[in-house]
């Protein structure tokens, strides 16, 4: 049964390949677009307010006459960069907390209840409140989203660490006198990496969506510095006469998140064949 399932060209490859291709296309478009740009993202041109897509402005202009293509490309760098920062922060902090909780029964209860409390808030509201308290700068956006999303990583790492630390090879390492840190980083961490990679792929997508939501309501990255979220947020006043202000940045955002979701699904199934049909 298993060998048959492995030989059959399964949906897993399709999802991974589709997601990977989509991600490559997005990156290629960003890079090629940057090279070919004819306008600066923040230059106002009051003679060209809300013009539709044309040969001059491929994706049209916004309410201040700025080139939408340039704003989407620079906004893309900002959105992806903030998303990547959140992903790396949650991966590092979440793994630390999860590893400690999963292997130290004394701290397990305390750490996990703390994670439960953090997860008891609606993610966006918690991030908004943190930004209200600390002030809305790009660094604080990363900080707020990282705090909101760390518990998810910590929970998954803790679960895996708990299972792995009971396995005979870890017992064996302990019995020959391996140090606590050696067991954590040499014997347990590698076993967690596959699940972590899947989780962080989805988290990258969440973080991009989270930043977009915060910036959309005006509390994330501050204009004129563009991000996909605040391009859409600024469009709220004028999109009823200008569909391109929603469609292009919205699609950039959606296709990026779709690519990450596809990669995450594909990787998840590749790692755990039992999930192939789930």
């Amino acid at each position, binding site marked *: 049964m298993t060998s048959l399932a492995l030989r059959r060209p399964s949906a897993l490859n399709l999802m991974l390949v589709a997601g990977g291709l989509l991600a490559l296309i997005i990156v290629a478009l960003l890079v090629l677009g940057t090279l070919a740009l004819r306008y600066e993202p923040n230059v106002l041109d009051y003679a060209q307010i809300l013009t539709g897509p044309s040969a001059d402005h491929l994706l049209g202009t916004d309410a201040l006459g700025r080139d939408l293509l340039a704003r989407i490309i620079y906004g893309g760098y900002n959105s992806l960069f903030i998303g990547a920062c959140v992903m790396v922060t949650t991966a590092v902090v979440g793994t630390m907390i999860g590893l400690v909780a999963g292997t130290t029964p004394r701290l397990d209860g305390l750490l996990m209840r703390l994670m439960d409390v953090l997860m008891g808030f609606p993610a966006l509201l918690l991030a908004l409140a943190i930004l209200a308290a600390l002030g809305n700068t790009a660094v604080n956006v990363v900080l707020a989203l990282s705090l909101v999303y760390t518990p998810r990583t910590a929970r998954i790492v803790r679960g895996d660490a708990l299972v792995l630390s009971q396995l005979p090879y870890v017992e064996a390492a302990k019995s020959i006198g391996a140090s606590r840190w050696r067991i954590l980083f040499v014997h347990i961490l590698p076993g967690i990496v596959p699940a972590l990679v899947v989780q962080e792929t989805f988290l990258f997508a969440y973080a991009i969506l989270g930043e977009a939501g915060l910036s959309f309501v005006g509390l994330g990255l501050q204009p004129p510095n563009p991000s996909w979220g605040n391009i859409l947020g600024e469009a709220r006043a004028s*999109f009823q006469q200008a569909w391109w202000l929603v469609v292009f940045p*919205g699609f950039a955002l959606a296709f990026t998140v779709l690519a990450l979701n596809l990669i995450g699904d594909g990787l998840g199934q590749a790692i755990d064949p039992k999930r192939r*049909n789930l």
Partner: protein
Amino acid sequence: MLNLILRRLVLFIPMWVGVSVLSFVIVHATPGDPAAAFVGQDAGPASLDAARARLGLDLPYWHQLYNWVAGSLTGDLGQSFFLGRSVIEAIVERLPVTLSLGALSLLIAMAVGIPLGAIAALSPNSWKDATSIGVSLTFLSIPEFVVGMLLIYLLGVELRWFPIGRYVPLSEGFLPWLHHLALPALALGLSQSALLARMTRASLLQVLRADYIRTARAKGLPERIVIGRHAFKNALITIVTVIGLSMALLLSGAFITEALFQLPGIGSLGVNSVLRRDYPVIQGLLLIASSFILVVNLLVDILYGLLNPSVSKR
């Protein structure tokens, strides 16, 4: 069963205190002086001191924290800086809007998500399955505010089927209420349906592989009964849990959806309070929203026990 409920309740109380304390700590992490936000930029030191005394900000940190937790137990969440009323009043008067939006969105999410997932699970690896996965991945990837803006543009501006930017309370009639709420609820509901579809598919597929399904088929039960009575009922246990857990997601989505559609609910109250640094309201909203999620999780746990007797016996 009673045992299960009691155990959950005992866990609930420290969680609630934790959430209450964290709400206070986050809002009071402000580097600036909340009293300055209250009296305005060009106030003299005397009025600043007076404001501090009135808001209780001159008390020691621990005393303030104690006052907050004790007050919140009796429903006293303090006074808004800007609305001229208590935080709890401001939240309660906006609650019906958010509850309306949430309920209608949830209904749409269930009506779309559960059949979408079930169709996929009943014919795995077919074109139906692929289409269902594609549709749910799409809804999962487009944020609710982009769906909302597209709906406003197509159905509100171009076709003029739905009014935009107004809320009509249920007391003015069901149809006007539905008509004004349809677009925001659709935007939020379609986004939520994706998760539900994926979970329905996964849980139904898992149930369909179980031995008792093979037994039911082997003894010649019609497929309708195998699926409806044996498979779906058991898959429902997971689905109910997912619906409960997605409340937090729904609430987050409601904040953005309300801001986009200018609905006067607690979501837009939250966004506006953050924009004008109305700290007591932010703090109160954090507590109310997380209490709501805690209560829903508690109910889900209990319901889970009712649906799955093996859990409550453990």
